[in-house]
């Protein structure tokens, strides 16, 4: 049965009253549901996804400088004896019932209270490293507060755009109390592992030089 467009006769037309705008209630997910979806292939496996505050977030594909920096960090940490820590590269970190981010690198403790197999838990995390190219706002304002809330002792944000490493320490009340910025030529020591040092120059790739049009001569 087709329904033809109808000529409307207005019955008592009134101005539609405005109402307060309310946001739709997006259904949030638990870490258990998120894992189940990933395991059953319901999240497209070639995409990068993580769970933050119950929200499933799609992370843009990794770029050249980002990949290079992750490899450089991995190389730097691999220099150290394996008894010192466990290294997780671009694997999930179980933060809470509602958050399971996928940081670029995590240094995990060994032994009692340390990494016990499977998906790493926040209690065993000594350092989280986020390499940040286009995701700076997201790393500072969405991920960083979650790490602080869950008590991750130290976070480094490798800020590729400004070519510095921001080190955050002393999580308290959902934020880090101490922030230190390390520039080229400097080195950072992991607070929980004083023998582990990283040179900023080793892990921040050189910037891409964008070709500029020569100025027109009149």
């Amino acid at each position, binding site marked *: *049965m*087709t*329904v033809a*467009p*109808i000529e*409307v006769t*207005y*019955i*008592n*037309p*009134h101005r*539609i*009253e405005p*109402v*307060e*705008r*309310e946001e*739709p*209630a*997006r*259904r949030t997910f638990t870490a258990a*549901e998120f894992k*189940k*979806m990933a395991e*059953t292939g*319901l*999240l497209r496996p070639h995409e990068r*996804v993580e769970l933050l505050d119950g*929200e*499933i*977030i*799609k*992370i*843009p594909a990794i*770029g050249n400088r980002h990949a290079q920096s992750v490899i450089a960090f991995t190389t730097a940490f691999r220099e150290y004896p394996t008894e010192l820590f466990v290294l997780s590269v671009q694997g999930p970190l179980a933060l809470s019932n509602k958050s399971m981010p996928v940081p670029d690198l995590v240094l995990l403790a060994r032994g009692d209270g340390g990494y016990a197999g499977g998906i790493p838990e926040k209690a065993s995390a000594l350092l989280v490293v986020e390499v940040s*190219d*286009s*995701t*700076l*706002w*997201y790393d*500072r*304002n*969405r991920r*960083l507060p979650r790490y602080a809330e869950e008590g991750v002792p130290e976070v480094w944000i490798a800020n590729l*755009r*400004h070519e510095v490493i921001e080190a*955050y320490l002393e999580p308290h*009340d959902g*934020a*880090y*109390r*101490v*922030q*230190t*910025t*390390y*520039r080229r030529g*400097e080195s950072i020591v992991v607070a929980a592992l004083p023998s582990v040092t990283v040179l900023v120059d080793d892990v921040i790739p050189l910037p891409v030089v964008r070709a500029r049009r020569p100025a027109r001569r009149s």
Partner: protein
Amino acid sequence: MTTTRAPRTQTQAASRTARDRARSKAERPTPWTFTVDEWERLIAAGVFRDGERVELIEGEIIAMPPMYSPHAACILWLAEFFIRRLPPDLQARVQLPLRLSSRSEPQPDIAIVRRRADNYRSGHPTGDGTPLIVEVSDSTLSYDRRVKAPLYARARVPDFWIVDLRHRVVEVHQHPTDGQYLNTANVRAGDTLITPFLPDVVLAIDEMLPSS
């Protein structure tokens, strides 16, 4: 090396060119969205709790608010009203899924659909040939106008009603064009409403929305 005792908020604005801003916006993390196929697989995999009321709107999973009794009573009134008067070629669906597009599968309170012998056992109906959708609105009036109306307009559903329980008004939306309804009218208690596909039937707002 510079150390600061940081205040609670640690955001820093960086000055960038407009092109950098545009580029970084494209590369920003975004909420994950689902297709209708993935959504139906999620349901089949038992990800949602028993009795959870959820629907898929433009790829996002939305939790519906709890069903209070005035809302339920209105739905029941509408269901009975239509079921008794629909011609044989139409059926009334109550809070059942409607597979509107590749990214949306809402569960409208009432959807009049073309009758199928198998009652859509093989798959939920699409919006084709759906002459009327009704959403009863308790606390979701703004959302129903802002999100549901364009959704149904894009699916070219000719008639969409929002029953505003609080103000005892039915908002009639008609003439879907370019993703929105061009004609809107308010019908109040004391007025009557004629359904376009049942022109001989008259709906009394007072009966649908009695004052309590």
